[in-house]
């Protein structure tokens, strides 16, 4: 559908990007992205997807807002304590961009629910906070042939990659999902950087501009500070994607 006058102006600072244009914006407005988790990473990633004009942003989280979230999860305030995150995040995102559809889903992502939750999405964003659920999401994305952006953080450290097996490794090719979940200290700036980079991967993929991190892992060490891009390869014995 051609852009309206309002949309042409609203999105002009990004449609001016080489290769993006009105066509890229129209593709974006027709896209659906599933954001798994609206904690620190999810607040940042979903915000930039929404204001960029991704047509449908699905925000999925089963948690409620806790006081200790407020240092980094900027879609929530003290007034939201004990309320479910997904509908609050959705309302905030709609305020930022009434032009798009934001769908809140209050659900835990597990082996029974994952496949159904991500159905119909063009892209999945892993904004989760534990290895076990990441592995579940990875397997669901592989089964549905939906690409996934991976990010994880702790302290000033963050990892990011674009996963689309068999063209790239899947998450289990290089991440050990059996490690116990921990809740490390995380300043808001770390999830802000990594969540924004997840949105950047999504926007590049959906508009066909730039190069994604397919086959590469970005390692952010904010304490040094350093940004390194590392080649990653498929594991031929990967329990999740071997045989693809």
């Amino acid at each position, binding site marked *: 559908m051609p852009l309206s006058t309002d949309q042409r102006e609203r999105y002009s600072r990004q449609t001016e990007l080489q290769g993006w244009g009105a066509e890229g914006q129209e593709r974006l407005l027709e896209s659906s992205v599933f954001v798994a988790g609206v904690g*620190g990473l999810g607040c940042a990633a979903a915000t930039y997807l929404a204001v960029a004009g991704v047509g449908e942003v699905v925000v999925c989280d089963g948690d409620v807002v806790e006081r200790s979230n407020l240092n980094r999860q900027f879609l929530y305030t003290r007034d939201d304590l004990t309320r479910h995150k997904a509908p609050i995040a959705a309302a905030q995102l709609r305020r930022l961009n009434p032009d798009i559809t934001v769908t809140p889903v209050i659900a835990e992502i597990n082996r029974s629910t994952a496949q159904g939750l991500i159905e119909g999405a063009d892209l999945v964003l892993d904004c989760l906070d534990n290895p076990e659920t990441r592995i579940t999401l990875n397997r669901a994305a592989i089964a549905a042939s939906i690409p996934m952006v991976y990010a994880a953080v702790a302290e000033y450290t963050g*990892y990011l990659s674009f996963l689309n097996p068999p063209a790239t490794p899947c998450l289990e090719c290089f991440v050990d999902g059996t490690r116990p979940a921990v809740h490390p200290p995380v300043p808001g700036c770390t999830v802000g950087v990594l969540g924004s980079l997840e949105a950047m991967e999504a926007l590049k993929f959906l508009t066909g501009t730039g190069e994604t991190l397919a086959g590469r892992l970005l*390692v952010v060490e904010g304490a040094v500070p350093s940004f390194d891009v590392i080649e990653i390869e498929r594991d031929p014995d990967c329990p999740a994607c071997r045989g693809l």
Partner: protein
Amino acid sequence: MIIYLRSGGKLKDRLKPDVDQYTRRIEVEGDKPLRDILNEVGVPDSLVAFAFINGKLERLEYRPVDGDVITLQPPVSGG
């Protein structure tokens, strides 16, 4: 042979850097996997998620060669 282990993150304290604030020089005797070398210098492999050498991810079974600079990254799972 001599190898160099680096970490800028939370592994740094375990690594006890001595070359600069991120790097430790290690003298390795014989041919052995990185996992064994880490355990010998007091960095349990459970604390290492990734090791990369010359811009490429390597497993802890990798057998270092003289002069390798190996960057260690901790497991990270938060969101």
